[in-house]
């Protein structure tokens, strides 16, 4: 569930608009919080969950 991921409402919306499943994104923020940059990195084939 997207709302269970540590990410602000704005970043969750950004991920939806970019077509990224935020639950798959590795968060680099505080306590694993997903940032906008994390979403973009995932989209361009960067980080994966669990890596």
């Amino acid at each position, binding site marked *: 569930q*997207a*709302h*269970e991921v*540590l*990410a*602000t*409402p704005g970043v*969750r*919306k950004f991920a*939806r*608009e970019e*077509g990224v499943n935020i639950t798959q994104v590795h968060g680099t923020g*505080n*306590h694993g*919080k997903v940032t906008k940059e994390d979403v973009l990195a995932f989209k361009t084939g960067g980080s994966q969950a669990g890596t």
Partner: protein
Amino acid sequence: MVVGEFSEEVDVLVIGGGPGGYVAAIRAAQLGKSVTLVDKDELGGVCLNRGCIPSKALISAAHHYEAAKESAFPGIATKAELDYAKVQSWKQSVVEKMTGGVKTLMKGNKIKVLAGEAFFTKPNEVRIMMEHESERFTFQDCILATGSRPIELKSLPFGKRVISSTEALNLDKVPDSMVIVGGGYIGTELGQTFAKFGTKVTIVEGLDSILAAFDKQMVRLVERNLKKYDVAIHTKAMAKSVAETDKDVTLTFTDKDGQEQSVSADYVLVTVGRRPNTEELGLADAGIQLTDKGLVQVDSQGRTTNPHVYAIGDIVPGAALAHKASYEGKVAAEAIAGHPSIVDYRCIPAVVFSDPEMASVGLSEDEAKKEYGEIAVGRFPFAANGRAVSLNADAGFVKVVADKNSGVVVGAHIVGMEASNMIAEFGLAIEMSATLEDLALTIHAHPTLGEMVMEAAEVGLGQAIHVVSK
């Protein structure tokens, strides 16, 4: 032309003008859709006409009357007079101001408003029964927002003296006595309000506590104030029957010991819950399925089993709250406009306008323990807050619940003056995945009630300033 033969085409049809429906209509219009909204009653729905707004207006009047009648404020003597007819007409003016505002918003957003009752004749067509005619409308997309109505108990049918919240809000004078069946937030808010106006109130609740969904420690403070007004509370009690006479009505119930009791009053107010308005809409003909609880089945965008019909608010699963309906309305409108919006929230605040106010958001302590194992709890009393004491309002506390491991805030519970406003900061904290540290490091203005958010976070971190850690 034969009435009903012609079918008018509309882009987006919104059925219901409550806080879900009218917000959905506005957002759809903002996104370039041509929108038609139909409602059988007044714009604004239950919330504006016979719910949130009128109840808060009466609560506010009762609070002022209480303060004037027996000022609890040291050194201030007052003499109060109550003109309830004036209170009622003022309340009505508040309602009219707010519903007038909705009308203006509809006009401003070029939304066509129809007064009538809609039902589906085909998956993409409704018939709207208006005052003098009926007309068919074919829609591209439809948002169903028909809301809910008070539940009527078979054993206590509504009548002249057995009433719902709607009639209770519109009584033309203060009753001498009232029995309230159902001590949820509606029953408690109205019961406390009438008690302040001078009504002898008795609450009959089936569960083991009034306001059972809320933190027990919070409820205790409300109960204490209810007792001050001589409100009798029967818990684990089952209402059985009523007998009406010209002069009064008698409710018979079994108390927690299984003993039968009866109590007579001017009115019996039944507030045991609300039922979704999903009947007489022809939903089945439109291919719209219900859940086994009688609610409309929807996906994460609010789409029903008919891909061009969305449903929001009290007719879909989740808390029956105005702010949830509005949120869902925006999601549905955005989905219709092709946006990838979904229902995606971490929490919804719930507020009771009791005295003192209660507000809650996110997980309770027990729920958080189950989810996270170890939790951190920070509780800060109003009695240690300078603003609260200077307001002569030192009853209450702010409690924050966090995941102990990460410090991420997952719940908050407030009882006390302005709890309804203070809860907003915790809602944001939870949505932002803020930690106790984030709250504690944010400078809060002094002296304010809002400071207690920071102080509670500090307690949760074991770094309390204004209370001594045990």
